[in-house]
């Protein structure tokens, strides 16, 4: 179980850092979210 928590923390950290550091990832994520909202609301 402890190993699972470590893996979750690692996935969260790598994902967050990728969005924060890699140029364009944040915009791509926002575009994805925008499309999801548009589809969900239509």
């Amino acid at each position, binding site marked *: 179980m402890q190993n699972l928590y470590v893996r979750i923390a690692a*996935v969260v950290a790598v*994902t967050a850092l990728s969005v*924060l550091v890699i140029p364009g990832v*944040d*915009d791509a*994520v*926002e575009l994805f979210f925008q499309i999801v909202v548009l589809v969900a*609301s239509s």
Partner: protein
Amino acid sequence: MSVVKKVGVGSLWVLLVLVTAIVTAAVKQRFDDGPNRVFSGGALVSGELHLGPEPDWSFVNDIATIELQLLEPEQSRRIWTASVDGKVYVWSGYMNSLVGKLWKSWPAQAERDGRAVIRVDGVRYERQLVRIKSGAGMEELTALMNEKYSSQATPATIDSGDLWMFEAAPRNTAGAH
């Protein structure tokens, strides 16, 4: 592990990545100079501050969106706009729906403290958002909104409170409606 369980676990990992990415992108945007697409941004910092006479706002009818920032709280969002009789208006729809009540907080914030900054084509303008609660006399504006954005605004939706309409008036004025 069965195939179904593997797919379920894999889906949970994908969901974790997506939620983390979306939350991180939304938080990051709060510290940026203005909004990007749908996430709220921080204060509008860059751009010349307009200090001249009141412009004829009809030019915004050729612009899809503008950036709007309230002073309290200092958050900005991208928003639709239209102009009639040289005045500029912004609005928020679906305010009587569950989505509107959960998602849209800026209209209530603007009603409490209407001081705002809008940025159009890189130029910032200090404004005072003044809510218009009556749809009387708003036929031309709602028709323009429907033509520009294919929306379904009517004076009745303003009366009912489903559409919150604001005139972005010059700062320190009570508005003209």
